[in-house]
């Protein structure tokens, strides 16, 4: 019988014939932590009695969530993480380097690999055909020491994509639409596998946005095949030699097939306080916003900043709306400077934040006030997510965020195109 992408990768990495429902122990190619989950991981690692990493070169620590540190406790956690990196000889990415998931995509992930991270959005690397999933600190501590972990092989949903994105509609609108269809727990424990004729035109930047939010439907992974677009991305990032084609078998067995015609999509929004509370922008527009935030592992890439800069160029943000922009990585920031996007955004009234998670999770750099509304390009709008349980968060594409920042209220981006 044929295999899904999930079954293929887990078979290869567990040296067994892994089928959905099986439990396997599989080799881990890359394991990482970030600064809010890393300290507990280190404590669990030491409590287990481990003294060395199985693969120091494939272990990474990212300082991105509270970076630069807004409080002495985070500063001390950063010291702990830096010392561990030095002691164990593993990689560390410092304040300002960027968000873990963006750096994993730029520098590490390859098709067919297994990647585990102490962060739920580790699924992002599924865009490159890696079986990438988030785990807690204890699981990552053990994976760091043993170089392997256990998995229940997930059943897969095939998301069959056809057509092309209409004007003003982007990957973010697609994944919000899908989460609205599937529900926040509709794909719990499952793999979302993306296929269909539209894939040939879905860029790596868009794939990363889509895979990133697979977890918001409950999924364990969001997997794309390894194809020409994957190969071009790897070549562009200096590791073309790591490319290998990766496709599901034609006779693979899917628990569900969900067809989506991209031509039919329109700009979408997630309304407070759950990600699956999705409506078309046309049905929500007019809601006043005090903050627009463009960035994160979902939408802080060069293509995202390009779209925002194009809409905002020569215009000004609404005086009642703060506009925060956080590039996803140092490389994204450099290119956005070179291409003039940063100038357009700053002239339009944006505050540029350092590459990192920024305002996304409510620690710093854009915490909301009581009753305030933020339109964010991030992946979560849970109550309290941006540091205040009395605030409201709407999720949308960078285009919708840019258009809304100009008018000071939720706005259909097609008005500016």
């Amino acid at each position, binding site marked *: 019988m044929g295999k899904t992408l999930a079954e293929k990768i887990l078979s290869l990495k567990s040296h067994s014939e892994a089928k959905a429902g099986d439990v396997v122990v599989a080799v881990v190619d890359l394991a990482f932590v970030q600064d809010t989950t890393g300290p*507990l991981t280190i404590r669990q690692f030491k409590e287990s009695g481990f003294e060395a990493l199985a693969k120091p070169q494939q272990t990474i620590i990212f300082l991105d969530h509270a970076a630069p540190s807004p409080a002495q406790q985070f500063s001390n956690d950063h010291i702990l993480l830096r010392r561990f990196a030095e002691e164990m000889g593993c990689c560390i990415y410092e304040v300002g380097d960027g968000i873990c998931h963006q750096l994993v995509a730029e520098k590490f992930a390859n098709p067919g690999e297994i990647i585990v991270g102490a962060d739920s959005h580790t699924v992002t690397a599924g865009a490159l055909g890696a079986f990438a999933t988030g785990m807690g600190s204890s699981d990552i501590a053990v994976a760091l020491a043993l170089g392997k972990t256990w998995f229940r092989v997930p059943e897969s949903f095939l998301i069959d994509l056809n057509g092309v994105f209409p004007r003003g509609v982007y990957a973010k609108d697609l994944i919000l639409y899908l989460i609205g269809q599937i529900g926040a727990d509709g794909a719990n424990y499952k793999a979302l596998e993306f296929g269909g004729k539209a894939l040939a035109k879905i860029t790596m930047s868009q794939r990363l946005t889509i895979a990133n939010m697979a977890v918001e439907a409950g999924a364990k992974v969001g997997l794309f095949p390894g194809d020409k677009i994957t190969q071009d991305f790897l070549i562009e990032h200096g590791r073309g030699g790591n490319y290998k084609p990766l496709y599901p078998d034609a006779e693979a067995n899917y628990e569900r097939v969900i067809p989506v015609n991209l031509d039919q999509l329109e700009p979408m929004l997630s309304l407070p306080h759950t990600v699956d509370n999705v409506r078309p922008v046309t049905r929500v527009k007019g809601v006043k916003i005090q903050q627009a935030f463009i960035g994160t592992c979902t939408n802080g890439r060069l293509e995202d900043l390009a779209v925002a800069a194009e809409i905002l160029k020569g215009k000004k943000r609404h005086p009642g709306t703060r506009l925060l922009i956080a590039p996803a990585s140092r490389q994204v920031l450099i290119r956005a400077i070179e291409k003039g996007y940063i100038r357009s955004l700053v002239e339009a009234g944006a505050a540029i934040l350092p590459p990192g998670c920024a305002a996304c999770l409510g620690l710093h750099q854009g915490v909301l006030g009581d009753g305030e509304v933020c339109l964010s390009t991030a992946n979560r709008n849970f109550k309290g997510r941006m540091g205040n349980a009395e605030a409201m968060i709407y999720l949308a594409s960078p285009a919708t965020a840019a258009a809304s920042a100009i008018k000071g209220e939720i706005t259909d981006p097609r008005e500016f195109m």
Partner: protein
Amino acid sequence: MPDLVLKGKAIKLGDNISTDDIIPGRFAHLRSNLPELAKHVMEDATPGFASKVKSGDFLVAGKNFGLGSSREHAPVVIKMSGVGAILAKSAARIFFRNAINQGLPVLLCDTDKIGDGDELEINLKGGTIANLTSGITLSCSRMPPIMSVILKEGGLIPYIQKRRDFKL
């Protein structure tokens, strides 16, 4: 190792209790000071929870309990509050695994049959929940055998300290 029979009172919660409800990100600076962090457990979802919860109580939720972040601090602070087990219609994948790794039982069952304040007796070995208030007995769905063993050992760290490897 958790006792095989747990007895306590139900604290009812709704659907989609996120890890931000359990322990908001704004307290992330306290993650290396767990006793301080634990004071804020469920603060946004159920104000006053930390002072109300009694040792041995059960959290009884609807669907998709623990959705969101991979922060293992969520089950850690629930366990520190004295909660003996979590019952839910469904639990988000990462939270479920994290809770078991912390030795905190998560049982999936039809929680509509449990009311707030009901006295429950959970048999972990048999996978059943006797509702002593209503007289109804519920059965729970089974977890993969490796998770049962990790839970029995009191969590992943004790499991690994003993075995030094995964044994399927």
